[in-house]
């Protein structure tokens, strides 16, 4: 461990629930719903129509803005609808619904019969390949990878950091990927290093995954890639915390990792890059952790993007008891879902069904200024004050005097609050109100 970050919390790990079982491969679902927005940026435009026959890997949504990523069909079959469907992050959104023909046929020429060697490709070629194959950040943020790998000329990048921290409770799919696809990860990282133009890289892994650390050490021995074991603490996997722990540098407020000379990518994104460059395989499949107290057989599942949550739960054996909450992502920052007919999108690392014991919705009490939130906040804010400002609708002070926009909404403050205050919700409100004021001016 090099440096530590200040603050953070230590929720119960809960990873052995799913980690104790091998990754299960979900058979091709009967129906997939592919939202036209699975990335940071504007939604794509559908390139197919109702009634079209599509093959697996076919582009069905093309970007119409710079920051965007194309969408590919994850099964072969017929487009039965292009309509508003549930979206795990935005509630609802335009999506393409495909009914599988059970043939699971690729579009011709994918995957490539002869793998490409990245060393023979130019930087620009590689970026184009990554873009065309719809690769986005698979840690959950879904930022289009082809943009991240092409930093502006004036930003000097010194190293790439691969994020293998996986600090959220329950989630262990990144762990499994590190154990099972280490060679692909290595190749993906080499490709990234070539494209970005660096010769030093780090892989950060929380030290509750000693087997993954060992595999990584073996895979990368003798290279310029340093494996860094990290202290187990949430949110160690947050980009800023990761960079601080490995390099000691703090990304200034409002700035990017680029401003401290670093590009960060999730370990699974590296694997996706390798598949895309080598075989031209688009992002239509991923491994997600299916876990939670209400799941009968928690495990990691390799599934198609667009599969519906309900179908995924059925595949792992259903519920052991009535779930009270369904969460996309991890329990600290994930999104609660209103129903089970919501699709898995590219960034879904966790599919959780929590029971009533795990979900305690309690009434908020007034802030007793105990200071636990101040101790827990990794970016040096006073969450207590922000919650009070939010409660009392005092908007501008939150930005000017209390740095509300520094907040990464990790939820550490809420986790420790004895008054059970919804601090992050107040902060989101304050940010939204401040943005509204700025756009009015």
């Amino acid at each position, binding site marked *: 461990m090099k440096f530590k970050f200040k603050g953070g919390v230590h*929720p119960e790990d809960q990873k052995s629930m799913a980690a104790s079982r091998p990754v299960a491969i979900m058979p091709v679902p009967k129906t997939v719903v592919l939202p036209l927005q699975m990335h940071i940026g504007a939604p794509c435009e559908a390139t197919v129509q109702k009634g079209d026959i599509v093959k697996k890997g076919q582009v069905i949504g093309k970007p119409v803005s710079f920051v965007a990523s194309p969408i590919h069909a994850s099964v072969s079959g017929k487009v039965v609808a292009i309509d508003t469907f549930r979206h795990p992050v935005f509630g609802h959104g335009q999506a393409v619904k495909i009914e599988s023909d059970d043939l699971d046929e690729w579009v011709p020429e994918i995957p490539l019969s002869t793998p490409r060697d990245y060393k023979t490709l130019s930087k620009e070629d590689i970026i184009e390949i990554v873009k065309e194959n719809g690769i986005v950040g698979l840690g959950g943020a879904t930022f289009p990878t082809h943009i991240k790998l092409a930093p502006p000329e004036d930003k000097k990048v010194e190293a790439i950091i691969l994020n293998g921290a996986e600090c959220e409770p329950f989630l262990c799919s990144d762990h499994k990927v590190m154990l099972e696809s280490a060679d692909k990860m290595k190749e993906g990282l080499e490709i990234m290093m070539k494209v970005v133009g660096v010769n030093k890289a780090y892989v950060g892994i929380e030290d509750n995954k000693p087997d993954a650390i060992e595999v990584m050490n073996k895979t990368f021995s003798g290279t310029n890639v340093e494996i860094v074991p990290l202290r187990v603490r949430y949110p160690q996997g947050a980009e800023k915390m990761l960079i601080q722990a490995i390099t000691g540098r*703090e990304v*200034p407020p409002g700035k990017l990792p680029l401003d401290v000379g670093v590009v960060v990518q999730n370990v699974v994104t590296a694997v996706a890059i390798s598949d895309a460059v080598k075989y031209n395989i688009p992002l239509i499949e991923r491994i997600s952790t299916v876990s939670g107290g209400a799941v009968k057989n928690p495990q990691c599942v390799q599934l198609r993007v667009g599969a519906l949550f309900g179908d995924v739960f059925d595949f792992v054996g259903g519920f052991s008891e009535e*779930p009270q909450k369904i969460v996309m992502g991890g329990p600290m920052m994930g999104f609660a879902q209103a*129903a089970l007919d919501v699709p898995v999108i590219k960034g879904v690392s966790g599919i959780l069904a929590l029971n009533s014991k795990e979900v305690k919705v309690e009434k908020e009490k007034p802030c*007793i200024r105990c200071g636990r939130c101040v101790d827990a906040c990794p970016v040096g804010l006073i969450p207590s004050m922000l919650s009070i400002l939010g409660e009392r609708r005092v908007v501008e002070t939150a930005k000017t005097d209390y740095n509300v926009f520094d907040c990464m909404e990790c939820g550490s403050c809420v986790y420790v609050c*004895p008054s059970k205050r*919804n601090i992050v919700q107040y902060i*989101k409100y304050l940010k939204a109100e401040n943005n509204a004021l700025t756009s009015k001016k």
Partner: protein
Amino acid sequence: MEMDNRLLTVTPAPHVRDNDSVQKIMWTVIAALLPAAAFSVYYFGTPALINLLIGPITAVIFEFIVQKIRKVDITVTDGSACLTGLLLAMSVSPEVPWFMMVFGSFIAIVVAKHAFGGLGGNLYNPAHVGRAAMMLSWPVAMTTWTKMTTAADVITTSTPLKILKEATKDTPAQAYNVLYDTFGSQGEMYKAMFLGFRNGSIGETCTVLLLLGGAFLIAKKIVTWEIPATMIATVALLTFIFGPAGLFTGDPVFHVMAGGLIIGAFFMATDMVTVPITRKGQIIFGVGAGVLVVLIRLKGGYPEGVCYSILLMNTVTPLIDMFVKPKRFGAGGAK
């Protein structure tokens, strides 16, 4: 998969929280005070017991009535009113009549707490405000610790701080010797003070039990160590330097154990609502409170200054919080 109609809870993240609660905090602090309170009943007898009961019970009753009138949730089970009443009782002399306790409890709960908005809204430590109001209204009764016969002891002296104050006025160079003589020797005085066999307010005499309670709270992370440590260290240092017989002739061990400093530093000055929220701010608070305690003890009219020192530092807490903020991540700029 059937499109079912199950009801799912949809709330914002995070979806897990730890097991702490306001209730747990308050009742744990009460538990930490009980050993010292029990000792006082043994040592001072029935008068102490009466006040120890009146304090919490009237506090809870007043809170219930006020919350009914305000038409807000009744929160008496969270333990905060009970704690305030208990602390108030433990900070007064055992001889204080019951009606003064009721008045103090009223001021603490109704005026100092609920008139400011209830839990979390008060600027001042409610127990200390109640005590200060009692002091203003009945100055003699509240500063009288007479000779009394209790079940455990025949107490023939006033409080050690009062003895020292009078002796300092009369014969400063000999002040400490006068004090030690009343206990027999310096060593015997230390023993008596440590174990609680001396005159004083109900909860403040038994140093050892209070220290154990305080250590328990710090270990349980209910209370942060910054304020007790800095307040006590400041008092020790300054009372050592500014001795009655000249510089560096003070007795810091005596001053630390004397009066309400231990109970104040661990249980009153750590009242989270009324002290700074950052650790750095808490250190400033502790040092400031310590300075004020010494100022009042050595130069002021009262023999003991803990109550006012805490209230005065409560006054500047919002100012401290305005200027002392945690280090902003990345504030140093890109390096």
